[in-house]
């Protein structure tokens, strides 16, 4: 049965790649931010207590990070990056000033991707024109410049030096035929580093504001300060989201959750522009426990006629929230077994101690 499903999936993929994708090539799909390899190594925006690091590039806002645990040095060929503004290569390994890095923090490191959730997607050079910005926990914001980090990956990065929650947004415009596509995405990450007040607010005048911004906001409550298990989403969790268009909530708007394997659920936002999904478990573990996270997508689309008479006649606003979802640890952890084991150990040692004491106290015959 499982084999048959796999074959079916394969056939559908081929159909998509060879027939549907070329036909639909004109439509850029959705834009989203995927946790970069450095974040994935550390659990996708969740530090797992790991310390930080890595390499460097033109997109970062704080200079060169010092590589840290779990971040092996990149091959020399990757040290030279093509910067977004076309200024060619920049040998950041040798020229950037060393970055001050809190040992337990990690960078905001994201790959920009364009395509269809749970189907084909790419991170191509066209995304170098995307706009991206970061809002830091101290209230400072800064523009991030996408750069080609590897031949297949356009990425953005911020050193994320201070403690707290970071909001990373990106947008991309494309006109195809009569339609103008405006794609937006937003991601959040938490970090432990230094206390925010130590850093002066940077100059914020270069932050882009592309109107209208159509965003899906993750309203999950703050998980606290424990960086050993911060900000992870698990299957079974609730995901409250809010749709904002030019910072105003969008009511009665369909919003869709798509899991990594393509399962979909569509809800309609209430009058506050909010909807709450349950992050369903995609599949159970096969032979081995799989603790790896997969990407879930929340998407929404608004189609409307264009404002101006010139240019394209229609406008499509699309927004994506891509998030890493971990399999629920309840699949393999048992608290009751833990408590039983603890009490059993205590009882056993207590009884042994009591018996030994009694034997010692017994008067000699």
């Amino acid at each position: 049965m499982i084999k048959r499903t796999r074959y079916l999936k394969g056939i559908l993929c081929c159909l998509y790649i060879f027939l549907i994708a070329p036909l639909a090539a004109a439509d850029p799909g959705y834009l989203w931010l995927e946790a970069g390899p450095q974040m994935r190594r550390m659990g996708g925006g969740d530090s797992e207590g790991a310390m930080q690091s890595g390499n460097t590039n033109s997109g970062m806002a704080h200079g060169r990070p010092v590589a840290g645990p779990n971040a092996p040095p990149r091959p020399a060929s990757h040290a030279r990056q093509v910067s977004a503004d076309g200024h060619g290569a920049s040998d950041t390994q040798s020229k950037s000033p060393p970055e001050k890095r809190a040992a337990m923090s990690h960078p905001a490191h994201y790959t920009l991707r364009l395509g269809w959730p749970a189907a084909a997607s790419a991170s191509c050079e066209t995304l170098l024109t995307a706009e991206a910005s970061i809002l830091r926990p101290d209230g400072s914001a800064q523009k991030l410049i996408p750069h080609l980090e590897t031949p297949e990956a356009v990425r953005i990065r911020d050193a994320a030096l201070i403690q707290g929650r970071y909001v990373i947004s990106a947008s991309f415009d494309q006109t195809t035929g009569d339609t103008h596509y405006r794609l937006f995405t937003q991601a959040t990450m938490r970090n432990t580093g230094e206390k925010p007040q130590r850093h002066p607010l940077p100059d914020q005048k270069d932050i882009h504001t592309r109107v209208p911004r159509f965003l899906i906001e993750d309203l999950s409550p703050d998980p606290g300060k424990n960086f050993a298990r911060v900000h992870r989403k698990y299957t079974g969790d609730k995901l409250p989201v809010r749709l904002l268009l030019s910072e105003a909530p969008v009511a009665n708007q369909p919003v869709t959750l798509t899991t990594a394997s393509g399962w979909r659920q569509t809800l309609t936002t209430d009058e506050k522009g909010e909807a709450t999904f349950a992050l369903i478990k995609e599949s159970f573990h096969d032979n081995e426990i799989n603790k790896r996270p997969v990407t879930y997508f929340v998407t929404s689309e608004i189609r409307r006629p264009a404002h101006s008479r010139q240019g394209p006649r229609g406008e499509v606003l699309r927004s994506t929230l891509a998030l890493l979802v971990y399999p629920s640890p309840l699949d393999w952890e048992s608290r009751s077994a833990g408590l039983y084991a603890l009490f059993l150990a205590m009882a056993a040692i207590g009884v042994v101690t009591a018996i030994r004491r009694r034997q010692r106290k017994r008067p000699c015959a």
Partner: protein
Amino acid sequence: MRIDRIRLIVQAFCFVFLIYGGILGFSIGNAVPTMACIYAEDRGGACFLYPFQRFMSLPLSTLIGATILPFLIYLGTFFLWGLVFGKAFCGWICPLGFLQDLLTRARQFLGIDGARFRWASRERFQWVKYALLALLILIPMGIGNSLGGLPKLSGDWAVPFCQICPGKPLLPLFSGDTSHLLIDFSSPVKLALTSLLMFLTGVFLIGGFVKRRWFCLYCPMAALLSLFDRIGFVGLKKKGEACTRCGNCYRACPMEIREIADERDRKHMVTQDCILCMRCVEVCPENKALSATLLGFPVFSASAAGFLKRQGCAPPLPIEDFPHDSNSN
């Protein structure tokens, strides 16, 4: 006030700071050489061992290459802490030590007799803390490197000591987090480590109720802090000629260190198990036989007068003040 009481107050303060300090935004960093568990959500400072094991799990080329600076800063911070406070961390600051002292007080309150270590078994298990220290270096190294051509260990072995340290399930409990009291069935390694953790936590709680500070004898942090026994700012010195080997200090010592009473020729008395609690200085009845020192200068010394005062007796009078027998003239 008795030094025991002062110590309890300081320990309580440090406990509150280390477990809840983060609520007010206080933090003394993550390189503190004491068992202030990093899993406690509102912590005001965290144990050195967690990041240390994380660093050790890096490939060697990365550790001595790209991460050498953060690693050295980490080690340097630990070194400074150790140099200034040394084993005083164990006696005055450690939250797990404080929990053991509370268990001992609870036992005393209930009027239950405590147990002492047999000298032979104590000697026999001295190596355990050094073995644990070696393992918490070698196992993480085996994750990022292939040691001796062996295959790399799986990520399930990450932070191995934290995975079996009773502080992990116990200290987060004080901020209402019960999520570390569990058995993990995801792999044989996880199953073994979490079962061992639950067992050791049980032993910690019952053992702490039966024996004073038993866990400290096996603590790898104590093994690390032993590096500062001689060079640390805080010390414990003995004046052999004043000592009468009465054994008061040994009987009062929570770590049951025999050498403190036995050895008269030794000057520096901070032994590998000493927690610098200064109880021995307090109970010693001989003038200046034992002294607590700071940077080599005595700050608290044993004295006959102090001893008698603490016993509730009048201090001894100088010879010339003794009342004379009126008939003697």
